[in-house]
Every structure is written in structure tokens, then in C-alpha cells.
């Protein structure tokens, strides 16, 4: 294979935009949770368990975690693109990161729904 500088993958915008949108989702969720917890007269296991007992909170928490994972994927991939030069090692790291994030997603569902 000839050794050329290869660019023009024609993606980039979507990931960049998704990273911004997921950041907004995470910010909104974080503010709501912090404000809710600060408004509680006492804070202990009961408050925490009650907060996560409803399906609405579980669903939004899942949305938050999915946003976090997608956001992290783009961020980590960007770091790898900057610092890891051999394409084969880059691909390997990408695969490992994706696998880890898929495992985290399954794990999150288990935790949130107590499976």
C-alpha cells in the first residue's frame, strides 16, 4: 500500500454535534439531581432509594448514562487520534473502548432496575 496522508473520512460533524448535545443532557440532569437532593430535609439511604424507585427517574438516569458513554467515546477517540499514531493500535484501542462502554451500558441497566 502506498504511504499517503489519508484524510476525508467525511464524518466529524455528527460526532462533534452529538458531543455538544450529550453535554447539555448531562448538565440538565446533574443540576436537577443536585437541586432535588439539596431540597431534601434529610439525606440518607431512604432518600436515595426513594429517588430511584420510580421508572421516570430510572429512565432519565439511563438517558444520562447513555449520554455520558457516547460523550466519553468521542472524547477518548479524539485523544487516541491525537496521540496514538499507528492505525492498527488505534483501531485496537477503539474496539476496547467500545466493548467497555457496551459492558457499562448493560451494567447500568442492571443497577438501575435492580436485575
Amino acid at each position: 500500500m502506498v504511504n499517503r496522508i489519508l484524510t476525508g473520512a467525511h464524518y466529524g460533524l455528527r460526532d462533534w454535534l452529538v458531543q455538544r448535545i450529550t453535554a447539555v443532557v448531562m448538565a440538565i440532569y446533574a443540576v436537577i439531581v443536585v437541586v432535588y437532593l439539596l431540597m431534601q430535609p434529610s439525606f440518607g439511604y431512604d432518600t436515595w432509594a426513594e429517588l430511584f424507585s420510580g421508572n421516570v427517574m430510572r429512565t432519565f438516569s439511563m438517558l444520562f448514562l447513555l449520554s455520558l458513554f457516547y460523550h466519553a467515546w468521542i472524547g477518548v477517540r479524539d485523544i487516541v487520534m491525537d496521540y496514538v499514531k499507528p492505525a492498527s493500535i488505534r483501531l485496537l484501542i477503539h474496539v476496547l473502548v467500545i466493548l467497555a462502554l457496551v459492558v457499562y451500558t448493560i451494567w447500568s441497566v442492571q443497577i438501575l432496575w435492580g436485575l
Partner: protein
Amino acid sequence: MKFRIYRYNPDTDTAPYMQDFELSLEAGDAMLLDALMLLRQQDDSIGFRKSCREGVCGSDAMNINGRNGLACITALSSLKQPIEIRPLPGLPVIRDLIVDMTQFFKQYHSIKPYLVNNDPPPETERLQSPKDRLELDGLYECILCGCCSTSCPSFWWNPDKFVGPAGLLQAYRFIADTRDQDTAARLDNLEDPYRLFRCHTIMNCVDVCPKELNPTEAIGKIKDMMVKRAV
């Protein structure tokens, strides 16, 4: 005045080193380039580029006390001594303060830095309204000195793939020009994880630009146009 200057002559030196110089000179209104010219009378082997000596040609860009700038418009009185002068970071050194800017200009050429207009040329020039012309302010003034791109970490890591702030500012200069008809192709050319999206809004480019231009803002506008096109 005390100076520490980066010296490297690949023909005779095995490694670069810093050389101390001293100059009896009152800072006054003098610029760093004036001092370099006097130092070259002491030691005529100091290599640096210069031409217009008034911040128009962009030849004497160098790293001054850790910050990229043009020697000809950097006042000596504004600099802490010893004044440490190094070549622009991230580019191959040819000799002393002279760097090989091939990679920089390759990226500049990759964005087609010229008007593309397929209409037959009119009798006189292609006119713009004053409002349309205003869009080019803050873009056309770039002198391609390379201060911004060589202060950009993304350009350090991927100079072969990331266009860099100077090239992207010029890319937007032609996207913003109402006389240009190649907008779609220009955006296609930059829709790439490396060419445009290596910019992580570090903003070193804005910090160092000797012409006080804002490549980060131009890059943001290119991204905005891509979003508008895609949604």
C-alpha cells in the same frame, strides 16, 4: 540587555543549544527585530528571516519568551530579560530561528485559497455590497506568519492532517465571500475528523495572533454552516 537564542546548524552541530548574548541598548521604542539586527553585527551566523520589518510580511515569526509573535512589532520594553528566543515550535528547524514552513503552506493550499467562480468574467471587477464585504473583515488581514498554527497543540500532533488555525481562517475567508461559488465543496473538504474537527477550542491561536484575528471564531462559523447544511 540579555538574550538567550536558540542555535542550531545541522551542518556543524550535533544538537541544538541556547547561546547567551548581551547588548548595550536602551529598550526605548526599539523592537525585538532591531536588537536581533544588532546582535547579528556581533555574530553574523545568527539565522533568522525578516523582510518588511513592520508586521506586514510575516517573515520574522518566532517564539519569544515562550510565546509566538513577530519580532518586528514586539517592543523590547515589553519583554522580561533574559529574552529567550526560539524558532516557531512544531516545525522542522532549518537553521537557528529559521523553520521549514512547507507543511504549513501545504495545509494552506489544501483549502483552495482563491475565489472559485464559474461565471464569465465581467467587464470590470466582481462587485460586492458593502455589507457583504464587511463579512471579510477579520479574515483577509491574515499574513500567514504561522504564529497561530505553530502554537496549536492539535497542529503539533497532526500537522499532516489538521489544517490548522491559519488554514481554517482562510477556508472561512473564501466560504464567507459572496463571490465564491464553491461553498459546498469547501465544506465537504473540511467535513473530516482530522482536517477541521481536530480543533478542540484551545484558543492559543487567538492568544498569539499578531494581527489580533480570531481563527477560533472562524472555525466555529464553519461548524455552524455544516450544522445548518446537515439538519
